[in-house]
């Protein structure tokens, strides 16, 4: 992996020039933080606004007469419930119910559009293209020509509104609109992965710098800051949003990952029968949220114990800046998943007390 050439977004030079600390992530060289550090970037996003270069993420165009039926077949959400300009979170699952990836579905006037994880781009494309038999549909990878940027936070809409004539009052949460932002034709999606109000923007990749600098210029007086991957992780963790390779993977079904809200089990889709079986029989393990009672930083892969016996593993562990807690997500046997259960996290050879708490750690601001 080390000699693999890392891809760079069109903002790479900007990040480097502004002190972005570049790290390898999912085959890309991305800023993990800027000079003021991830904690301040996290708070800026919760209290004002954050701007995220997320062009590493993949986007596919799904077109053809059967696009709706096809996406209904491959994803866990019921696409027939989606109106034009709706956006919705869903999962792609294997036949055995485990997770290929999580996905955002966008229903546009003339086609469908999906956004997926960078690390799964090739795998997802192959998997989606391998399930088109019997459907008049074409799945095309448009990641290279499409730029993806997120503007998130309580001031995000106010900032956006300074550079677009599209009235965001007419674009409620989980819907999209097409229009110009900073003079650039853009698909504006009132979505995001931080627990804050805001938008994700899709536009011609050649205009990335123009968009970025314009948004920063109008946003900085309102507290907007560029945000790197470290704060992106703490921002998505607090509202308990899953991240592929951590909370979700080909090792777990959506039931174990507690993503029942992303499932429509009353319609057929790939993996449904296996998922129904897990639901009916009850999952053997479950994702839980926990906070440390003893001080210490839980980290991914640290063992989880109950009464001193190792029963599971941490999948995300951090100091959650807004919650002000050392906290994490872990998989434990279902019988230990109850809120209030005392667990221990093995931190560098020592068992430290923790307790399972109700998720999320931060209730999304738009709810």
């Amino acid at each position, binding site marked *: 992996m080390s000699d693999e050439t890392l891809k760079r977004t069109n903002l790479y030079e900007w990040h480097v020039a502004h002190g972005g*600390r570049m790290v390898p992530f999912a085959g890309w060289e991305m800023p*993990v*933080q800027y000079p003021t*550090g*991830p*904690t301040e970037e996290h708070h800026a996003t919760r209290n004002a606004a954050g701007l995220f270069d997320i062009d590493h993420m993949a986007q596919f165009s799904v077109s053809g007469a059967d696009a709706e039926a096809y996406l209904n077949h491959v994803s866990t959400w019921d696409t027939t419930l989606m109106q034009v300009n709706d956006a919705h979170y869903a999962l792609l699952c294997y036949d055995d119910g485990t997770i290929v990836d999580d996905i955002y579905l966008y229903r546009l006037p003339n086609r469908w559009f999906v956004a997926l994880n960078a690390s799964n781009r090739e795998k997802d494309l192959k998997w989606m293209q391998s399930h088109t038999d019997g459907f008049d549909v074409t799945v095309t990878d448009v990641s290279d020509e499409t730029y993806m940027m997120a503007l998130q936070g309580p001031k995000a809409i106010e900032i956006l509104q300074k550079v677009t004539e599209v009235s965001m009052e007419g674009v409620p949460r989980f819907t999209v609109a097409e229009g110009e932002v900073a003079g650039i034709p853009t698909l504006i999606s009132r979505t995001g992965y931080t627990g804050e109000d805001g938008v994700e923007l899709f536009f011609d990749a050649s205009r990335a710098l123009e968009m970025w600098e314009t948004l920063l210029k109008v946003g900085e007086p309102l507290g907007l800051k560029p945000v790197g991957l*470290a704060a992106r992780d*703490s921002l998505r963790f607090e509202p308990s949003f899953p991240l592929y390779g951590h909370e979700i993977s080909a090792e777990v079904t959506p039931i174990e990952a507690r993503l029942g809200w992303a499932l429509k089990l009353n319609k057929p889709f790939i993996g449904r029968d296996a998922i129904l079986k897990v639901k009916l029989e009850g999952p053997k393990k479950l994702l839980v949220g926990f906070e440390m009672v003893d*001080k*210490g*930083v839980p*980290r991914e892969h640290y063992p989880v114990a109950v009464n001193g016996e190792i029963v599971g593993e941490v999948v995300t562990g*951090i*100091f959650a800046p807004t919650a002000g807690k*050392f906290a994490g997500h872990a998989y434990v046997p279902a019988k230990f998943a109850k809120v209030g259960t005392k667990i221990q996290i093995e931190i*560098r050879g020592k068992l430290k007390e923790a307790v399972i708490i109700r998720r999320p750690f931060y209730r999304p601001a738009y709810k």
Partner: protein
Amino acid sequence: MNVDQNAKYMESHEWARKDGDLIVVGISDHAQDSLSDIVYVELPAVGDTVTKGDVFGVVESVKAASDLYAPMSGEVVEVNESLEDTPEVINSDPFGAGWMIKIAPSNPAEWDELLTPDAYAAANA
């Protein structure tokens, strides 16, 4: 990068500074900057003994846990308790309020083995 001219250094980025007969220990500005935001620090207790080059504690940043190595041997006579609730002080004032422990050295000659400010700065240029 700031280097405290009154301190001496370990290659592993701890600093040691004389305070009367005692040795004050912390991590360098370069170290705190590389670690990024520090969220937790685990330090020894007063009365513990530490050995030069051995681990005496752990500093945890947003990114990772890093061991702390003792620049000199001796007995821990004071611990900066305020770091338990405000570890971010290590980021904002690594040579001052971010100090970690004070050691009564058992082998004062170890001082001479530490890197001078210039040597440390040159090694991390």
